[in-house]
């Protein structure tokens, strides 16, 4: 009510960039997943800021959708993390190169 839309948008941008940098830099999959959460959260913040700017409930509805997505994604991601840990005994994302063809 006090702040203009630029302030939360800038915050969202900074948080998103932090998450992105970490996503690119970290090899530990725990941190990768956390980065994704940070980025999702930043996106949610932008939605809420936009909702505030226009005074409509759509921003918060989209935030709920993002929350949903984050929950579902994390559930699957964490299970995959556990499975990977069981199979490769490491959390190194660079070691998980099973996608590459054999040669």
């Amino acid at each position, binding site marked *: 009510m006090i702040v203009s839309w630029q302030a939360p948008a800038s915050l969202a941008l900074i948080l998103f960039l932090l998450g992105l940098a970490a*996503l*690119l830099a970290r*090899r530990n999959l725990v941190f990768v997943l956390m980065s994704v959460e940070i980025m999702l959260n930043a996106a949610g913040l932008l939605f809420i800021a936009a909702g505030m700017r226009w005074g409509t409930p759509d921003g918060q509805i989209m935030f709920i959708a993002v929350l949903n997505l984050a929950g579902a994604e994390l559930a699957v991601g964490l299970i995959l993390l556990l499975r990977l840990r069981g199979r490769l005994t490491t959390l190194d*994302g660079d070691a*998980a190169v*099973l*996608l590459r063809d054999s040669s």
Partner: protein
Amino acid sequence: MMRDIWLVPALPLAGAVLLGLLGGKIPARLAAVIGASSVGLAAALAIRIALLWFAAPPPGDAFLLPLWTWITLPKFSAVVGLLIDPVSLVLILVISVIGFFIHLFSAEYMEGENGYARYFAYLNLFVASMLLLVLANDLLVMFVGWEGVGVCSYLLVGFWFEEENNGEAAQKSFIVTRVADIAMLIGILILALRFGTLDISTVLHGAVSAWPPGSFWPAVVAGLLLVGGLGKSAQVPLQTWLPDAMAGPTPVSALIHAATMVTAGVYLVVRLHVLFLLAPAVLHGIALGAALTVLLAACAGLVQSDIKRVLAYSTMGQIGYMFLGLGVGAWGAAMFHLASHAIFKALLFLSSGAVSMRLHHEQNIFAMGGLRTKLPLAFAAFLVGALCLAAVPVVGCGFFSKEFLLGAVWAQNPLLWGVGILGAFLTGVYIFRAVFTVFFGASVDVSGAYGVRVILPLTVLALAALGFGWLQTPDFLGGANIFSNVLAPALGGAATDASWPVALIGMAAPLAGIGLAYALHQNGFWRRQGAASPGLFVRFLQGGMGFDALYRAIFVKPFLWTVRVLKDDPVDQVFQLLQRAAVGLHKRLREEQNGKLRRYAGWMMAGSLATILAVVFS
């Protein structure tokens, strides 16, 4: 009866086809019978036609038998037909009769060889092609025979194909003549474009009416056709193939590389002499080249040790004489020398073949000696041939024809006559060098006797060589003009005789040569020459004065270099560069697809960054 002329080339052709198809299935004896009899029948027919001709010449002194239309198109047509006129009549007689005797000789000479039937098939095919060449009424048909004899020559030079050298000699002979033939083909193309046909009489009439003497086009055409003739006739500068062609069996050398095929160039010029008269410059060129050839052949003949190479150079020289005659417009004299040369050169080759038959195919003259008593028949035959070749007065046909020819040359150009006399002197030296070395002195061992198939050709040819010259004699020996009278309707009247001092020098030169050869034989010079390792100059002469080396440097080596450079198809390499680039790119991209999460994220990031930057800052 004249209409049966088609049988003359057809019989040997049929023989060739028969032998080619039945080849391995029939006994050798039958192959020889087929081979010889087909040519023999052709010879008999040719003689029959000749007799009829002399009894009652057809109107216009020419007889044309059109056979079938080869090509008829709006702007070009060619008809296959056979033309008998005095020139072709003389030649078919020479070819078929001498051809028959050589077939006969071959039957014994080649006995026991592999590919006996193949040999006769080639030989028959050669005779058929040669007859077609001389009988053709159309330059394109003549070209068929022209290339046909070339191919047969190639096949026969390389007859003993297991030897790599024979193959190379055969290829060389074909390629050199092929180069010449391409020039001839271009000349033919010009004529075809100009006149729409290649019928010889039409072309000649057209040329006379279209082109003034001494103008550009007849010189070009005549020059190009002449190149073809020079190639076939082994004249400077296309002579290099002939000595190597001696790799073939000796009867082949006798027939193809002495008596008939190599004179095709002479025949070509005689046949088209009307065209050549329009190009005086070309005629001068012919004479000059011929003089060079005569000297070169005589000098090279002096130092050869292989008897066949001696004879090969002598062939080159004698054809040089014929071209000398052509150069001064003495068509009839050239034809007479052609016929007499065919007889005595066939005789020389056959007798040398008869000698080497008994010496396990030895051809080095210094490995022979004293054969006069051991092989009297071969000696007699070779001696007759040598006397004719050296043009010893009155004895053989060579004297009469050379006398006739040099007389005509003297009337035109005394300088060329001088060259001819020098050549005659040297000819006397080198051929008697061979005679003395082979047949006199210390003797080598030989054994065996000749069969009738050798005796008969040698005897008949020797008698013919002795008798043939009397058809055309100089004034002081009766002045017979039978030969030139026969040719007169086609080639015009006989040339005048030379005055007696000229004739005397002409007679003295070969005698002096023989005397010198004898003197050098007596003091053992020839033997020493054979034993010593040759010096630089002698090697130069032996190798035909460096033409081979020159051609190797300027044609063969660059060609082989090009072949080596291009062998792997550089254009293909260019296309393969594209392929390599694609494969390289594939490898790079494949490395990126490595399953590493961060790399994928990085690339996605880079892509979206690029997009965003483009959107924001554009």
